[in-house]
């Protein structure tokens, strides 16, 4: 709104309640996040006695110290970083390789291949046939099981394809091909540089997916040393499997339990921190991804 508008009384009331509604929504979402953050920096007794309300009480890092005493956390962190980087690279390469040909209107058989891809969004084999396939391929309890089954998201292929179709015209390729440019060369030297934005969206979507994923690890992995962070988190947060070594500082059972309660808040922060740190810088790319995805292909 550029010009100063004189509001009628009923509009004033409307804007007041409208902004109030937004404020309530803001607080409902924000409060649990602040609480976890503050609890994680408090000491154990404040956490179990309910003294924490908004800010850290008796500021302390003992929760974080306990988290990093658990060897599973560091191993899991390392594994997750590996799965996220390797998995995302594989995802992005495969997505581009699928999306570019499918964006070319001259490609004979394009529709059939597109249906072949799209059908998998509506129907799939389900848990057991997938499990048996991974087993037959000998990938159970290997790092491959974390990379290959999820190597491509058809949804992202459609987003990238829509983007290529609307930004890189058929004429552009025709002009290039008259000068002797092949599809591979065109993809590398024209399409990729012109579509950095969509590649960034892909990297972010796939990256967050890998960071947060636990299902494939849960079904296919059995060895501790391969577990990603999310499986370790599940053990600690949900299965309540606290490593006794991380809470050995006292003999008192209440204090032990208190530390076990506290370290859960700390590990939530530790596990989510990388995403919170990049989120402010990349929010607009995520939004862009959703918007492109909402255009019918």
């Amino acid at each position, binding site marked *: 709104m550029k010009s100063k508008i004189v509001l009628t009384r009923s509009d004033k009331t409307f804007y007041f309640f409208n*902004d109030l509604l937004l404020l309530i929504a803001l607080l409902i979402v924000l409060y649990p996040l602040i609480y976890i953050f503050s609890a994680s920096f408090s000491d154990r007794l404040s956490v179990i006695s*309910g003294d924490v309300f908004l800010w850290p009480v008796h500021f302390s890092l003992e929760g974080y110290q306990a988290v990093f005493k658990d060897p599973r956390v560091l191993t899991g962190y390392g594994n997750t970083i590996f799965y996220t980087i390797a998995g995302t690279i594989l995802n992005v390469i495969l997505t581009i*390789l699928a999306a570019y040909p499918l964006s070319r209107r001259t490609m004979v058989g394009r529709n059939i291949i597109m249906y072949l891809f799209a059908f998998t969004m509506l*129907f799939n084999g*389900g*848990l057991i*046939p997938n499990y048996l396939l991974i087993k037959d391929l000998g990938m159970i309890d290997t790092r491959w099981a974390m990379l290959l089954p999820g190597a491509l998201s058809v949804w992202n292929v459609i987003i990238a394809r829509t983007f290529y179709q609307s930004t890189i015209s058929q004429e552009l390729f025709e002009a290039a091909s008259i000068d002797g440019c092949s599809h591979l060369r065109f993809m590398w030297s024209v399409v990729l540089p012109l579509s950095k934005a969509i590649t960034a969206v892909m990297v972010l979507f796939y990256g967050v997916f890998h960071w947060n994923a636990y299902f494939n690890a849960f079904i296919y992995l059995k060895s501790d040393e391969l577990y990603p962070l999310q499986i370790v988190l599940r053990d600690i947060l949900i299965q309540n499997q606290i490593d006794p070594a991380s809470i050995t500082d006292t003999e008192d059972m209440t204090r032990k339990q208190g530390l076990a309660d506290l370290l859960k808040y700390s590990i939530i922060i530790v596990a989510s921190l990388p995403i919170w740190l990049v*989120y402010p810088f990349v929010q607009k790319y995520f939004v862009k991804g959703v918007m492109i995805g909402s255009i019918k292909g």
Partner: protein
Amino acid sequence: MKPNTSPLGDGRKLKQMRQDYQLYLIILFPLAWVIIFQYFPMYGLQLAFKDFRIMDGIWSSPWVGFEHFEKFFNSYQFKRVITNTLIISFYDLIAGFPLPIILALALNATLKTRFKQVVQFVTYMPFFISTVVMVGMILQFLNPRIGIINMGMGLFGADPINFMGEPEWFKSVYVWSGIWQTTGWGTIIYLAALSAISPEIHEAATIDGATRLQRIRHVDLPGIMPTIVTLLILNAGSIMGIGFEKIFLMQNPLNLSSSEVISTYVYTVSLASSAPDYSYATAIGFFNSMVNFILIMLVNQFAKKAGETSLW
């Protein structure tokens, strides 16, 4: 999808394919992936009609027809998992679907640009929390001993409730935590639709004396109606397809009567079982996939007939 630009004759088709041979080379890898990791498992669905023996493999195990399906339909679990699945889905749809629309309309209407950005920034954040962390947060907040909800209720003299241990609380916890996590993110698509509404319509309405509330009712809402219908179709089509991850993490023996849904039941009778019945689990999964597929086809057909919009 649009049909190809021009109907090509066979000769021209071949010529075009020769010219574009690199396109087929490029798509070879993703295509191979789809065939191996998506279509092979579909081929494995024949297990649902067989009696799986590990020694024989999928191909050579003996056929048994619809035996596993009949077993499932007649089992005492059938009614329970179907009921739980449907109740949770409808609860989620009714409580969760309108909220992003309301929030988007409010965000779109506010005059405070900076405030709007802050609300967007914060309400999108929970979307990036992993399922495991989300369920961990739920357990912490609802903990009868140290959880902030029970401690807050304690201030008013209420007895602590073991939310996760009581079946009647399960569905509400599942649905409302999901609403907390996804409502903000869900506004993006509506905000995009709202920003596409021409400002001239708003100006005209204002000149005619419409209040802001009337403009929401008669300009904004009709403007995003196609988007609303499309998303409603998508949601209605997945009414039987509650995902495994969150619900499984929230389950415990105490709330199982209220929390067992089709996807978790498939896991219970197969990979989690000491006597896994792969064929039975495949049959249940197949039944579920078929229902999902038919539902989405039906709602899309319905939407096309209604003339509003369709998914493809």
